[in-house]
């Protein structure tokens, strides 16, 4: 589904990704781990199409198409979802309004009509119940005055409503208490499906106790330094990231 080859990307003249290759197939859950500054968030932003990052080499194909040619909104409509590390507060834009606009933008792209208002509300309430979110959040400004946990749940709500083919969750576990972490993990697990790939960008092994990955990759200096199964995450937890760096430098 997603094929990244030898990707190099920089921001403001500083190269962050230095020849990264990764492939993720439908049905798989990948975890990308790595120390601060290794390029995890950059990778997520580049896949989503952030224009501040310049791709200088390599390729990214999504469902066989060149992803790098598409605008962020086109990528989203094609089925890519980025769950933000720091979800943006948008005062004055109603949460329900954004959800509906997002769902309709995708439906239009698929040649479908707008979602029925009643059906939309029913669906949103169902997903919110699953995430343990109060319905009042539908009528508040997007992330406006939300706590850290509420923001992350809101990201998962958007993902659940949009049903993406590829979901990239950037540090979704950061700043969450154990209840919020469970709710978010449950939300993600409920979206695991043979048609969908999920990439979890995370710092800590903790999230992986709740969402079991098929593949674990460790990023170091803008490249994948090591890949393995879930046992790699456990080894990292035990030995720290220096172990990978040292191994990579050998």
């Amino acid at each position, binding site marked *: 589904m997603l094929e990244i080859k030898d990707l190099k990307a920089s921001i403001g003249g500083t190269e962050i990704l230095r020849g990264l290759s990764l492939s993720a197939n439908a049905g798989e859950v990948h975890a990308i781990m790595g120390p601060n500054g290794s390029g995890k968030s950059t990778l997520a932003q580049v896949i989503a199409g952030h224009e501040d990052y310049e791709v200088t080499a390599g390729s990214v194909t999504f469902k066989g198409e060149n992803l790098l040619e598409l605008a962020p909104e086109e990528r989203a409509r094609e089925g890519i979802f980025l769950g*933000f590390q720091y979800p*943006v507060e948008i005062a*004055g834009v109603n949460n329900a309004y*954004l959800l509906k606009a997002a769902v309709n933008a*995708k439906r239009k792209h698929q040649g479908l009509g707008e979602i029925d208002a009643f059906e939309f509300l029913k669906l949103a309430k169902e997903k919110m119940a699953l995430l343990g979110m109060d319905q009042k959040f539908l009528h508040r400004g997007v992330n406006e005055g939300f706590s850290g946990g509420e923001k992350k749940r809101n990201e998962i709500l958007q993902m659940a409503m949009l049903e993406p083919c590829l979901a990239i969750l950037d540090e979704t576990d950061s700043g969450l208490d154990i209840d919020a972490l469970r709710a978010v993990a449950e939300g993600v697990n409920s979206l695991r499906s043979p048609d969908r790939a999920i990439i979890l960008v995370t710092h800590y092994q903790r999230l992986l106790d709740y969402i079991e990955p098929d593949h674990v990759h460790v990023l170091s200096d803008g490249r994948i330094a090591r890949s393995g199964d879930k046992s790699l995450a456990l080894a990292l937890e035990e030995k720290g990231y220096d172990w990978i760096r040292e191994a990579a430098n050998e």
Partner: protein
Amino acid sequence: MSPSSLSMDVLRDVVEQLPDDALSASRLAALEHLNKYGLPTTRDEDWKYTDLTQIIDVSNRWLNSKRESSSSAKTQALIDEIRNSIEADWLVVTDGQLDAQSIDEFARSSEPGVRISLLSDSAQGISFDAPLSDLNAALLQDGLRIHVAKDVALARPVGILFVDNADASPGMTQTRIEIELAVGSDATFIEYHASIGADDHYSNAVGNLLVGDNAHANYVRIQDRGLSHKHTNRMSIRCGRDSKLNHCAFDIGGGFVRNDIVIDIAEPGSCIVFDGLYLVGNGQHIDNHTRADHRVGPAESHQEYRGILAGQARAVWNGKAIVHKGADGTDAEQSNHNLLLSEKCEVDAKPELEIYADDVKCSHGTTVGQLDETALFYLRTRGISRHAAKQMLTSAFAQTIVGKSPIHAEGDRVGARVAQRLDQMMQGVNT
């Protein structure tokens, strides 16, 4: 005579030709005041960014023209449209002339406790102590006085609709309203300025609002004039003991606009909230000056003005709060936020706080910025196009004020007009 001064001789002739009535003495006194002090220039601090040359030019051309007003079927259609879209008991002023039919209708159908009279009905005269108020008083044919009786609470808003027709020839109109809410009364007022036609036109509005002790007033001013129109408006407000005022001002149209709101807080216990939204597109100039004099405490004034500018637009916001000596317990807050949608627009934002009392709570904040790129990207990653995302963020910025209006309702005229105007403005700035 320099081109930037009024043709005073012609003005005097015009004033002298006006009917001899209870306002005659005020007119002549105002003319003398104007003759003595003239109109402000950009050398006056309060008028630094707003040059009245354009207004003087239209006024002179009007003075030297036949000075005919021509109401048309189009004027009536616009009046009907506005009256039908906003629930209120309406009084109509067309081309500066009070519409007798609307006054009769109002007298018949309005609620008990509200009384309408003409300024010319009384010998008490009119005030003209500020720039352009003297011009207004000198040329004023007549104005409206609205009185809400003691302890009366009006269920329906009182609307005053000013419509000018600028279909042909330069036009100039003077309008004046005096509103008094007696002790313990409660009422909502809508002051709506609209126009048709695209020729040069200058309208000069003056208002006085007295909110009595323990009275509660909601006041919404909507300026939605054509883009060739020049408009000035000065509203003086006095607030009584323990009174409440919610004032909300919208500038949706107008080519060259200057609004002054002057609030006098001379009794303790009052709470004034005044908000504003100005939409300034290519070629427009909109200046909002406000002043709140806290003479006693405790009293509160809270101001939030927001502006959206596009193309080659120019806006001025000057908010002054003066806490006089002894006005302890004052809570004065002002904020002004500006959203710039193009690189060519300019806003001069100037908060001014003068504090001469000891125990006060005062704050001010001003921002001038562009749409938040992070928020735009966030929306785009949800499948929203860049253009739609910009519209969403821009309308959310405006919605903060629209939602605070005391007459706000889902899908109402003001909200719809704001949305339409923003759309037009953004058509010109989309990249």
